[in-house]
């Protein structure tokens, strides 16, 4: 497949991907750093390059509500947000998933207030980890674009029918001009295909009720069906990703395994910091240090069995969280990964890093590897460590 190499910001790349899915409806409210994505999309619509109906709303709660109404009516629908915008959507985020509506949402990860901060961390999406959405994470503009193409196929698959959130790091990815390969419009459309809703509010031949009262009699059963969809989602994600690889040559799974084959030490993380770690891992590899990286792509569904298998038998594993869980046992990625490894004799420790956009630099990546070396040699380290903070 002939693909064009372009330089776009992550926001622009995602706007193009969504346009290529030919969605019927978009509803979003501007918030930094997501705004530029919807600017770009509005430009497509204004220029006649997209026939998407854009619904102007007065808040994120309304954006998600409009998206739910639209998706329930049978329209392919997307929205986008960041940080406090996601927090304001809160109530209806759960409803989108409960109604099994395959909405796609660009989540341009940004710290939550206070104090007010516009930069990247993952505390926004992590707050919604139990809301019933699928969470895909992206390292760079390329992966943000690719995930935003694949998201439709995953969300709309009849075995899944769940909303998908495509996460990419605010500013670090959203506002950085980065080289990426883009599919031609027709190839992207052929891959994504037309959306066939199973039910639609607008079909008088087949009237349905959406969102009725659901008390002690059936609520639990409905939640169980949601849980069952999560059980099926991993296979569909892999199937869609394999088809995407056949088309583009870019292969995706639940995670990217970087130099893991013979790695004695492994770093586990999400998002843009993976690239910085790869450069530092290469330097250590040249010195013969057997270190590798596991960059998780699917935080929801959380691939626990996969992680247990891949991380098992290593000499040391560390997990880096770009969000804090106040009063918890470390960040969300740490607690879940360590739980996935229950019963294994692998020393695991964690870090909190990069809150509020604090730069994750080459030195921090090197510190992590130095600590892994110590642990692998039998040394001790705290369960949770802070990285890149002034103490």
């Amino acid at each position, binding site marked *: 497949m002939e693909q064009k190499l372009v330089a776009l910001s992550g926001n622009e790349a995602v706007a193009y991907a969504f346009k290529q899915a030919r969605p019927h409806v978009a509803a979003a409210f501007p918030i930094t750093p997501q705004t530029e994505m919807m600017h770009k999309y509005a430009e497509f619509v204004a220029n006649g390059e997209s026939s998407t109906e854009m619904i102007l709303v007065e808040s994120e709660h309304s954006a998600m509500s409009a998206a739910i109404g639209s998706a329930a009516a049978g329209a392919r629908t997307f929205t986008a947000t960041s940080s406090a915008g996601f927090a304001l959507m809160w109530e209806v985020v759960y409803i989108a998933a409960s109604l099994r509506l395959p909405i796609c949402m660009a989540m341009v990860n940004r710290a939550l207030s206070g104090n007010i901060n516009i930069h990247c961390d993952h505390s926004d999406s992590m707050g919604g980890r139990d809301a019933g959405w699928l969470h895909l994470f992206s390292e760079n503009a390329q992966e943000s674009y690719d995930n935003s193409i694949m998201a439709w196929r995953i969300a709309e698959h009849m075995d899944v029918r769940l909303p998908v959130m495509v996460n990419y790091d605010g500013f670090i990815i959203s506002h950085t*001009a980065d080289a990426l390969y883009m599919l031609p419009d027709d190839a992207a459309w052929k891959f994504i295909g037309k959306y066939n809703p199973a039910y639609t509010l607008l079909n008088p031949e087949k009237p349905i009720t959406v969102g009725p009262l659901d008390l002690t009699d059936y609520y639990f059963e409905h939640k169980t069906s949601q849980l069952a969809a999560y059980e099926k989602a991993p296979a569909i994600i892999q199937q869609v990703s394999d088809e995407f690889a056949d088309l583009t040559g870019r292969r995706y799974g639940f995670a990217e395994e970087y130099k893991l084959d013979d790695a004695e030490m492994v770093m586990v993380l999400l998002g843009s910091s993976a690239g910085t770690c790869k450069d530092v891992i290469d330097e250590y590899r040249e010195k013969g240090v057997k270190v590798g990286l596991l960059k998780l792509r699917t935080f929801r569904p959380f691939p626990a069995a996969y992680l247990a298998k891949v991380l098992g038998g290593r000499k040391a594993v560390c997990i880096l969280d770009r969000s804090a869980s106040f009063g918890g046992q470390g960040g969300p990625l740490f607690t879940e990964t360590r739980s996935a490894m229950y019963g294994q004799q692998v020393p695991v420790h964690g870090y909190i890093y990069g809150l509020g956009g604090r730069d994750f630099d080459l030195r921090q990546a090197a510190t992590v590897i130095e600590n892994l070396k110590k642990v692998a040699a039998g040394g001790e380290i705290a369960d949770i460590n802070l990285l890149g903070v002034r103490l």
Partner: protein
Amino acid sequence: MSGKMVEIRWHARGGQGAKTAAMFLAEAVLTKGKYGQGFPEYGPERRGAPMRGFTRISDVPIRRHCMIENPGIVIVLDSSLLDSPEAGVTAGTSDTTVFLVNTTDAPATVSKKLGVKGAKVHTVDATGIALETIGRPIPNMPMVGALLAVNDMLSLDELKGALVEQLSSKFSQVVIDGNLAAIDRANKELVSA
């Protein structure tokens, strides 16, 4: 891979076009089969406030997503930043760093002010050139023209082609022509120590 990568740090004040230049250059090098990454440091975005921009150029895909601490090239769009320790123009630089400064001062004067020994310092009156060619004190594109006098990442023609392609939808022909002329002049008028 880092050996082949050029890392450029831009120091400017809001409104001088450093963000545009940092990102534009990242896109322009694609025509040459290179990979580019460009981004500004986002803070309170105010006209006149000190800001930094970053550009990486490489023969292979660029993976790291962090700020540039040890730049190979430092481009200063506003010479008043040389007097500001907070601007950190020399932070992380070494005697192999190349400085390009928009000023009417001679390289030796700037070199002394920066306190950098051994580093190559080049100067050009990009603001003066911009006023005469574009009609506004926007020194970003002239500084890109000057950059090509010390680095062969692109030819002048390739740069100008990319500029026409990328900016023609946003700016008038008069502005484009002014920028093209500014690039040529700054490229020729760069003064080296």
